[in-house]
């Protein structure tokens, strides 16, 4: 076997893909060949640099990616709640709500008075009916027997 074959073994070994039999052959060769020993030392250095570099990822890029993701689609109701309106629009809305409240309150009071009047009238009528009923003469009812035994 040539040095090239052993150098291929070195890469397989660094990738954990070299079987035990070939590992023995490689280590036996490395003990004799200075050139391949140096090759292994440099290969390990290269591998170390790559492993160090592989672990890096810029934090700013991560932030950039997540900030640029499409935003959630909101419903019309949510849009209405989040929309910015001018201040006078809000004041007008409050005034309308107050006006409606007062109108409704006065209407309710009006119906309440009407209901009370109707109730008083009904009570009066009931009392009149009772008085009329009491003034009527009492009626006695006698049974008539036809079977005189």
């Amino acid at each position, binding site marked *: 076997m040539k040095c090239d074959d052993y150098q291929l073994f070195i890469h397989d070994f660094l990738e954990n893909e070299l079987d035990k039999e070939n590992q023995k052959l490689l280590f036996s060769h490395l003990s004799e060949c200075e050139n391949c020993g140096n090759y292994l030392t440099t290969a390990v250095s*290269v591998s170390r640099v790559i492993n160090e*570099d592989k672990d890096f990822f810029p934090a700013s890029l991560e932030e950039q*990616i997540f900030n640029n993701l*499409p935003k959630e689609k909101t419903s019309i109701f949510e849009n209405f709640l989040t929309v910015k309106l001018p201040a006078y629009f809000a004041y007008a809305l409050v005034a309308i709500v107050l006006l409606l409240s007062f109108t409704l309150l006065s209407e309710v009071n009006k119906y309440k008075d009407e209901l009370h009047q109707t109730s008083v009238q009904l009570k009066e009528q009931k009392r009149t009916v009772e008085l009329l009923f009491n003034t009527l003469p009492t009626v006695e009812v006698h049974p008539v027997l036809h079977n005189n035994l």
Partner: protein
Amino acid sequence: METKQLISFTNIYSSHKKPVYHYVVKMVRSTMTAEDIVQNVFLKLFEKMTTVKNFESIRFWLLKTARNEVYSYFRKAKNHKEETLEENEASLLDSNLSDEIDEKEINEIVRSEIDLLPVELREIFVLREYSELSYEKIAQMVGVSKEIVKSRLFSIRQKLIKNVSKKIGVKR
């Protein structure tokens, strides 16, 4: 965006962000351009999240999308080779100023030598070493057989190690 969709996206993103980023940055050799490309790739993934069915081959899909973006960038910036080589030469000149060599310098030499590889060879090397793609997937991506990928990768590694050894040897 639905919570379920966002969770799924975050999981995929966390698992594959580094392999995709390092592939792109090693290919374009510019951090700013790489960041733009990586962002586009992940935004494309987010748009397609609802249609993704095969989560096992998601890394391949991400790298394939990144590759399309990288080559599109190459087509737009026709003079990319000249620009980046100048940068590399400058970094190598800087590293030659001192006679002593430490770990930091070895790291710089290794990075410079990787960057100096021709783009088609660098791509295979980066896909294997940084993106941890299988030989089959690399072959599928670059459009050659698995055996060619293996033999090319070995040649690249040999060349890289010999160049790095030479630089370190000269310094020592």
